[in-house]
């Protein structure tokens, strides 16, 4: 299971409305033009309150990653690992999410990614895949 179940609340309502449509929402400041992520409530750069919402193009690159290991069982076998990446979206904001279907290709700073979505209970959450043209 990539995600455990999650429910929307007042802070995340708009976000989950977008992800249900398989869209990743971005906030553009009407005053200074800075592009922020879905968590923004005001412009992170200039503090202006008016934001317009658009959809990310879905391209990203790796900026960091981790491989999460579970505790080995009594017989020494390790549960499956999980790769989480920080993807820098084409538009600038970073997003932490699992890498779906990780393979043995080595990750690096700048490895190209594409956004995808995976279920988290009744909601959809963004995740990443390696961009296919990298093979």
């Amino acid at each position, binding site marked *: 299971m*990539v*995600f*455990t*179940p*999650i*429910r*929307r*609340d007042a*802070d*995340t309502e708009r*976000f989950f409305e977008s992800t249900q449509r398989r869209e990743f929402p971005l906030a553009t400041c009407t005053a200074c033009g800075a592009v*922020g*992520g879905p*968590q923004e409530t005001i412009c*992170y750069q200039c503090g202006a309150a008016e934001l317009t919402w658009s959809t990310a193009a879905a391209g990203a690159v790796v*900026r*960091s*990653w*981790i*491989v*999460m*290991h579970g*505790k*080995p069982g009594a017989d020494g076998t390790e549960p499956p690992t*999980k790769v*989480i990446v*920080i993807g*820098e979206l084409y538009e*600038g*904001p*970073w997003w*932490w*999410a*699992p890498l779906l279907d990780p393979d043995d290709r080595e990750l*690096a*700073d700048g490895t190209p990614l594409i956004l995808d979505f995976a279920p*988290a209970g009744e909601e959809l*959450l963004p*995740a990443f895949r390696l961009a296919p043209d990298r093979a």
Partner: protein
Amino acid sequence: MNTEPDRTSVIAGLGMTEIGKVYGRSVSDFASEAVRLAVADAGLRLHDLDGLLVADGVAATPGVRLQRDLGLRDLALVAGVATWGTSACVMIQYAAMAIASGQCQAIACVLADTPLVPNGSAGDNFTAAAAELAPAGWTGVFGASGVVGGNPLIAMNARRHMLTYGTTSEQFGHIAVAQREWALRNPVAQMRKPITLEDHQASRWVCEPFHLLDCCLVTNGGIAVVVTSAALARDLAQPPVHLLGWGQTNRGFFERRDDRFGLISGATIAGPAALDMAGIKLGDVDVVELYDCYTYTVLVTLEDYGFCDKGEGGPFVASGILGPGGTFPLNTGGGQLSGFYFQGMTQVAEAVVQARGQGGDRQVPDHDVVMVGNNGGCLDHHATLVLGSAATR
């Protein structure tokens, strides 16, 4: 002649309960005992306290109800502090301000925790505490992928440092090995068996790039200090440890293109600010006690305080200067990696021991100035103390 009492602040008492795998006691019980021990250590009576600051533990917290548990009345200051790893230094900073303003005469600052349970995984318990936030909200959005607790957050920072500066896991290992050597000389340290770099490399992955031996311990118990004025401390039981300077930086990362996430912490600002307040230079620091939830956290803070250049932390820690007998006394009680884990109180407690000259087998000969660094959250918070022994004044 100036007849004003000296309201600069000192740490006059240090109390530590039995620590480690101590079961069957509540977090309030530990906190209460730690305060009583700190007060006794200072040579004060419990009812000399007129202020109480209480930090949140990771798994449990006594809260401000601790005043009742201690039977204290008419306190001039009570507050909870919850900035994760910086809570210890932050409490002491606010205590110093309350002493300087005359609001209080003697303040206990306490941190206790009970993450360890018999037959249970401490990591699971920490994670369970964090996961209570998970079902909703932005924390829940990230928690749903398993990004809960310190391991994934700080590992992500460490990877970025490695990618940018070429820092290696072996270099992190040098910190773990040196701190274990210090722990061998600390009678209360939880880990008392020597380790090698090979042991570090062979220890199981917890969250790549972190091996098990990159990660801090988990501890039940409590630690408290008593902060009072230099004027009052003059006649008390212990050598006063002067609060010469302090600083705090709460960064607010905006995680986007060109962010320096993983590359710097708030120590770049808080460290120099604390030294400025103390009126001293980095070169005047004799002993360094840095937050070490993970080996990486030590390395990045060394760079940020300016003990080495940015990006040079790896070669710096691998150069043979660390450990007992080295030229750079760092985390001299074994730290959170090998000593015990009470968030920022781990560093504060060892700094007080060293500044007083009470370190026994691990005492650093020159200990006039001790610099303490605390990190909280995902390097969101940083707090610094510059402490001076009696000899400094």
